[in-house]
């Protein structure tokens, strides 16, 4: 799970971890933060199975890559296994160096081309748009969890229990709605 500091990827990985725990799996999860709060690149490795040893996943071993931002998707694409699933939020957050003119943000064609070498299963989702439509940009993480939930053997009630554990009551209903929206959205996007 990759993104930019402040996008809520850590909370999302916490929810996924909690859901896997409730579903009875062994789990290891590690967030390589760098200095996440300060707008840096963030990546979380989450491993779920009967027995998990290493917390970090090797390059080429990732089953599902979920990216909250496009540059962070391509940055970590080599981690995806051949034929793996990539769920990419269609959002560009250009780093400062792009604004200063010392580097260039990759275009969609380049991003897709990079993934094409690895897999045909690339889903671009308009998660940020959907979050704004729900009235709270911070629901992006539960929308993305809704997307990923369609690929994992964890039932919906377990997911919602995990969300309830991790999200304050005041905004819980909104996040359930966002989760359902994510499940719906992923079904209607074309495979890139």
């Amino acid at each position, binding site marked *: 799970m990759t993104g930019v500091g402040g996008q809520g990827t850590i909370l999302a990985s916490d929810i996924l971890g909690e859901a896997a725990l409730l579903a009875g799996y062994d*789990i290891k999860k590690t967030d390589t933060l*760098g200095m996440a709060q300060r707008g*840096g*690149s963030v990546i979380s490795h989450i491993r779920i199975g009967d027995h998990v040893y290493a*917390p*970090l996943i090797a390059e080429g071993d990732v089953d599902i890559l979920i990216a909250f931002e496009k540059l962070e998707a391509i940055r970590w694409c080599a981690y995806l296994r051949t034929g793996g699933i990539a769920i990419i939020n269609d959002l560009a957050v*250009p780093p400062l160096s792009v604004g200063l003119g010392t580097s260039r943000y990759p275009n969609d064609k380049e991003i897709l081309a*990079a993934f094409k070498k690895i897999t045909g299963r690339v889903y671009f989702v308009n998660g940020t748009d959907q979050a704004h439509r729900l009235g709270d940009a911070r629901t992006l993480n539960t929308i993305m969890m809704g997307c990923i939930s369609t690929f994992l053997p964890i039932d919906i009630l377990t997911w919602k229990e995990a969300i309830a554990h991790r999200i304050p009551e005041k905004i819980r209903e909104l996040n359930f709605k966002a989760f359902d929206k994510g499940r719906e959205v992923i079904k209607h996007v074309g495979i890139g």
Partner: protein
Amino acid sequence: MSKTLTGTTKKLLSGNEAVALGAYHAGIMVAAAYPGTPSTEILENLAKHHDLNAEWATNEKVAMEIGIGSAYAGRRTLVSMKHIGLNVAVDPFMAAAITGVNGGLVIISADDPGIHSSQDEQDNRHYAPFAKVPMIEPSDSQEAYDMMAYAFSISEEFDTPAIVRLTTRIAHSNSLVEVTGTRKVPTERIGFEHNVQKYVMLPVNARFRRPFVEDRLVKLAAYTETFPFNKISWGDKKLGIITSGVSYQYAREVFHTASFLKLGMTYPPPKKMIREFCNGVDRAIVIEELDPFLQDAILAMGIAVTGKEFIPRIGELNTQIVREAAIKEGLVKGKSADTLTGTLPPLPGRPPLLCPGCPHSGVFYTLNILGKRSRLSDKSKEPEIIVTGDIGCYTLATYPPLYGMDTADCMGASIGTALGIEKANIGRKVVAVIGDSTFLHSGITGLVDAVYNNSKITVIILDNSTTAMTGHQEHPGTGKSAKSVETQAVDNEQIVRGLGVKDVQVVDAFDLKALRNTLKSCISNEQLSVVIVRGDCPTKTRRRSIPMVIDYETCTSCETCLKIGCPAIQKVKDKIFIEPTLCIGDVCSVCRQVCPHHAIEPAKTTAKG
């Protein structure tokens, strides 16, 4: 959280949470620490409990001394710090290694292989033989929880401080923990005994105490053979792997059939067990992160093992690195993974930045202008004003466009380094920048030296009222304890004046004109100056107002605003705009002050109020 069949609870905990819970259940009554990634969350978790004292100390040395005192008084005590934090605390640590303890004293050293958030990746396992104390290394959160009880028992039974070494990947990974214990506070050791031969290390007493330390090591060497987390699991006897900590997990992913000797106590190592294991396999190898610590110990036993010949000694390991090394060494079959990296377009990096509304941005922008530091992008130019830096968020000002500092060594070093450059007499003005927490941690002594030795440098204390970089911990200057209880705040202005600094200025971090005038006069005057720049960290206070917008009719795209390095000010397709969700508005207004065309104003709202 979920219930297991045996009725215990399973939790998904980080290594740090597991250490805190294990120490809590082991009955600690005192915990002291200074924040430092990746150790910070240990004390934060302990501070949530009301039935123990958990405190942020001024620095790691003080934390260690608090730990020693509390242990002398018979209480189980935890002291936690990052690897380089232990450097700061080594003086009292070495003393405690000789005096021993009474109540258990456990020191957490959280190392950072891969240098995720530090200035080096020193291997703190070396401190164990250096001080002749035991060292325990968990390989996941379960062990981090389970081993704490053992660490305290060992400390008490062998009359020694015990080190539990974590690494970033253990401290910051979450894994399942079956919580088997509950809190029990031992009472049998409580009390302080007048025993100068043990506690007053006059040379005569220290000499008396020395044989005890060697004798203790012999006893620990016998104990380590029985330590339940030192374990052999026989598999295929063609290959035997000796490993510990997180390296064990990577080795398990790569070697499915080999025999394993997994060490939970890496100092002293269980020599008998190691010999038995190595005799039982055709070839023994060591897989460990950083230095050949175990390998050298085993080689010194006269056993031929390899490891660092193919496992890197720099950086963090992972499954991929261990797998590639094993393939190259012919230990496992397979071919090296194809790497895609060469086929990708060059990607812009995304380094962490000073936040929108950061009180440090205006200071470094001003230093940049006064010292013409943006010319430093041209490598042939030397800085007109040399800025010695320190450890904190503000170290991020090093990146363009701020070009904020020329040096950053360790906590508190900015002032001493500046004094040295001044004394080198190379005809350049020197400015030291240091954060409020760092100043209290170890900057004060440098400033005492500056007063005493007639320095004329300028010291800027960047006071944002928090320890921001590690996640907004309280410190002696904030007036709040680790448990968020009001305490007396230590006032840095009073300290500076009390030391005898004559030229002391206090400036608002968001008032660029005042910053410019003050810094200009302090840097040019021929006396020691201290400028305290005050502005709260907006990421902590969450204070914000109406965001700024650019009036494109007056904007000439001169890009002056981009030179602040504010992440809210972005340029996409030749157009500069201010991202409204990031900008904190008039609370900061630095961009509004730098704009030469007055093209930046708070957004007009349609609704009133």
